[in-house]
């Protein structure tokens, strides 16, 4: 799976993008976030406020229950502030 991080999620995780091998029990957006939290202090910090995080799966907004798979591009970012 390809993971992308934007804005302060990039700063806090310390990376803009990475390729990860998903554990078999990670099948939804919510499970992905929980798994990512366990990957270290920087991820735990970055993901501590779930309400402040938006997720896009293959460039479309996704909810916690939406499915994710190994070939997906998943982006994590704060609420948008353009315009």
């Amino acid at each position, binding site marked *: 799976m390809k993971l992308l991080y934007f*804005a302060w999620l990039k700063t806090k995780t310390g990376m803009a993008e990475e390729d990860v091998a998903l554990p078999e029990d990670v099948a939804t957006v919510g499970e992905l976030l929980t798994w990512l939290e366990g990957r270290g202090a920087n991820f735990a910090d970055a993901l501590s406020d779930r309400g402040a995080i938006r997720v896009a799966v293959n460039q479309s907004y996704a909810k916690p229950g939406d499915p994710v798979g190994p070939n997906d*591009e998943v982006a994590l970012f704060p609420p*948008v502030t353009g*315009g």
Partner: protein
Amino acid sequence: MAVRVQAEDFDVGKELAQLTNGNHAIGGVAVFVGLVRDLAGGSEISAMTLEHYPAMTEKMLAEIEAEATERWPLEASLIIHRFGRLEPGDQIVMVATASAHRQAAFESCEFLMDWLKTKAPFWKLEETDQGAQWVDARDSDDTAAARWVKKDPDAAE
């Protein structure tokens, strides 16, 4: 109907001329141009950097525009959004909608701006004398966008 995401500045007059050129069914064009302000909260802003998610941006903007076109009888529409480093007074975004009547033009232009503010994957990093900081999303933008949500009478199931 067009969407552009670019680092370069744009010329509102030229864009409007191109948008309406030769289409005499257009009675009104509503336009919004967003500019970089020099103040945010209490801090002076010297510049800002607009980050975005390129693969998603054009897709979202095209979806937003398609929905506006479905909801209002538009003759033409245009969204331009810049990214990269911008200074106070610089143009950030331009939305223009053209219709036979002014109400459709105004409403769809507001609709596009509201959705763009809450859906399009852009993030502002402001440089102030306190250092650089990511701009927080404003609740008022969510409120503004919420007024366009259609209530579906068949949604009982």
